């Protein structure tokens, strides 16, 4: 391991390890300051970026950020890497790779960009993202095409799907149903109807899965359900014959972070295989769903890399994508503003992180969505989530999350509202997943312009759906 140097304004900055180059090249965020790995000045950050730009991409094959011997995420990524997928790109530097991506994006060459995924490692993708401006992340992100499916198709051009999240503080069936129907009436739910249960137990998970399944079956909705319980809980429910469309798990970018979530890679493989067995898909066979978020490894105290140095949270987030992609997910989303101001302090940091996470996930081959959200002690408000939503729509984000009136009454944070999804689709000319859009048409929920209509409670289409509330 040799120290790397860059001279800027007459001052020479030295970076003893690859871990430090990566951390100090990262745009400013509170979580890296908390971890003690952030650049000490703006000039040092640019110096680190200058060093990073000149590193060959192959550096990340020869030198690890988190050691191969000690960490099963590193082993999973390197042992399964397709050595031919990235082709000639592997002869580039990180800075050259940025330019290559921008050139292909400008030529709308989706095949070239999307074909790289299995040849890239999370660290390569994190590295190039650190050199990029927000506009670069958007321009390239929208050309990284990842299409997945189960009963609806996610990620097609010109589409923006949404997860309908009808959470309730006590998992009350009537309360959940009210939020669920409200979402359907607003054209939400094409990515998944997904509930965070208040109680993580097999019995509760089964009850909620059966509730959603009954609505999906009654109205023949081309979408899938998910109860975001721990993967072991979902496996128990599955063994008892529950209608499990997707197995869900939060994942992190280190072995220790995943242990903090109570999961191992073997456990995820077992769950993936069990869900595949059920063969519940109609248009595809993607049966897993993962959530991630910058800061999760640090909050578990599992953020150290080679030499015991703290790894920056954005690199660790990309490594979580390295975990997720191994299980052919239908959906992956970062919960970008949820974890708190000690990781992402304000709107500038949250917006940047949302765009990074989308770009990095897509480049690594994930069907990437974003929970555009915030807590009340973060310096973010709905104007900021509007901004991020429009930017993500422009970047080709696969899906967002929506709750009634932006207010998640179970998790006590704010995400997008159903109205926000309608607005994003309207201003960016995006449509729901095709199967779901056709269903909205069959239910007479679309106007002549193809947009979701506003209904009075006694409109036949509203009465038909609301019958399930009685």
């Amino acid at each position, binding site marked *: 391991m040799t120290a790397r140097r860059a001279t800027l304004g007459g001052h020479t900055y030295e970076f003893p390890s690859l871990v430090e180059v990566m951390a100090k090249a990262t745009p400013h965020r509170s979580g890296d300051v*908390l971890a003690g790995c952030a650049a000490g000045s703006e000039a040092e950050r640019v110096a680190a970026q200058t060093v990073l730009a000149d590193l060959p991409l192959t550096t990340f094959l020869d030198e690890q950020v988190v050691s191969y011997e000690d960490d099963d995420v590193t082993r999973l990524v390197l042992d399964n890497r397709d050595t031919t997928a990235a082709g000639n790109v592997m002869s580039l530097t990180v800075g050259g790779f940025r330019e290559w991506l921008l050139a292909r994006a400008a030529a709308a060459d989706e095949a070239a960009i999307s074909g790289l995924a299995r040849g890239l490692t999370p660290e390569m993708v994190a590295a190039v993202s650190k050199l990029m401006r927000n506009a670069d992340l958007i321009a390239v992100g929208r050309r990284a095409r990842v299409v997945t499916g189960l009963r609806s198709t996610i990620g097609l051009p010109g589409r923006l799907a949404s997860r309908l999240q009808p959470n309730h503080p006590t998992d009350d069936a009537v309360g*959940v149903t009210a*939020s669920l129907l*409200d979402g359907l009436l607003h054209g939400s739910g094409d990515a998944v109807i997904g509930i965070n249960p208040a109680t993580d137990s097999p019995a509760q998970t089964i009850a909620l899965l059966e509730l959603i399944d009954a609505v999906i079956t009654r109205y023949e909705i081309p979408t899938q359900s998910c109860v975001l319980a721990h993967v072991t809980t979902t496996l128990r429910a599955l063994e008892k014959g529950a209608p499990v469309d997707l197995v869900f798990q939060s994942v992190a970018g280190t072995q220790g972070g995943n242990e903090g979530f109570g999961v191992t890679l073997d456990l995820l493989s077992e769950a993936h295989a069990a869900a595949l067995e059920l063969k519940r898909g109609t248009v595809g066979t993607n049966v897993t769903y993962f959530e991630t978020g910058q800061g999760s490894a640090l909050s578990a105290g599992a953020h150290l890399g080679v030499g015991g140095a703290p790894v920056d949270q954005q690199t660790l987030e990309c490594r979580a994508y390295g975990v997720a992609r191994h299980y052919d997910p239908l959906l992956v989303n970062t919960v970008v503003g949820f974890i708190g101001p000690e990781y992402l302090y304000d709107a500038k940091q949250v917006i940047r992180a949302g765009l990074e996470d989308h770009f990095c996930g897509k480049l690594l081959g994930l069907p990437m969505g974003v929970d555009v959200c915030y*807590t009340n002690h973060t310096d973010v408000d709905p104007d900021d989530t509007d901004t991020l939503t429009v930017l993500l729509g422009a970047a080709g984000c696969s899906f967002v999350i929506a709750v*009634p009136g932006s207010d998640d009454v179970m998790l006590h944070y*704010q995400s997008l*509202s159903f109205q926000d999804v*309608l607005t994003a689709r309207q201003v960016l000319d995006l449509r729901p997943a095709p199967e779901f859009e056709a269903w909205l048409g069959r239910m007479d929920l679309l106007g002549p312009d193809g947009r979701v209509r506003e209904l009075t409670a006694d409109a036949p289409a509203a009465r038909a759906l609301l019958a399930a509330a009685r």
Partner: protein
Amino acid sequence: MSSDAFDLLRSATRARVALGRAGDGLPTARLLEFRAAHAAARDAVHSPLDVPALVASLADTGLEVLEVASAAPDRATYLQRPDLGRQLSGDATLPAGEYDLALVIADGLSPLAVSEHAAGTVAAVLERLPGWTIAPLVVATQARVALGDPIGAALGARIVVVLVGERPGLSSADSLGLYLTFGPRSGRADSERNCISNVRPPHGLGYAQAADTLVALLQASRQLGASGVVLKDEGVALPAGAG
């Protein structure tokens, strides 16, 4: 008639369902309702604790009231550096003694909750603890729960209870939490604490109810010489409403 089915949705959940639309956006009244709730939560986080007013409201306890600050110099640092909110500032001095219990009133993420509910809760707790030796009350600013550990240790208290403003929700900006730790010292894990959440009459727990639960936990903790998961596992009989 036309609103019946939507009323049914609204009556089924506290979630903000059937808000209506203005084009693809929200009706103005619904927009302003949301803003009002968010504003209350933001103000609860950022309005500093009125320490003199709080100290005055604690006069009836007859106990001395001490003031300390954490190592986080301001609100912005406090929010970004939870580690600093768990340490005492360099110039903090606390008189060592020998006490059964120390009560620490910490602004936390909602100084509003502390202003509204701390004095009432302290009074209700103290009247239920005859015979316990109680350390001087401590008011701590820019404080996290774990700041109670060095405070309790410095005072020489066997148990510390931190009354702290909880992270404001959209419809609950003034929620107070009570955290009990036996044998306070820096480095205690969260699993070594017991928590009573959502003290917020009239919507959440009342003072008497919260104090009943806390005193049951205190007695059990003193008996066992421990707190946290152990205490829960011992199946301490708690009054109804224990959170």
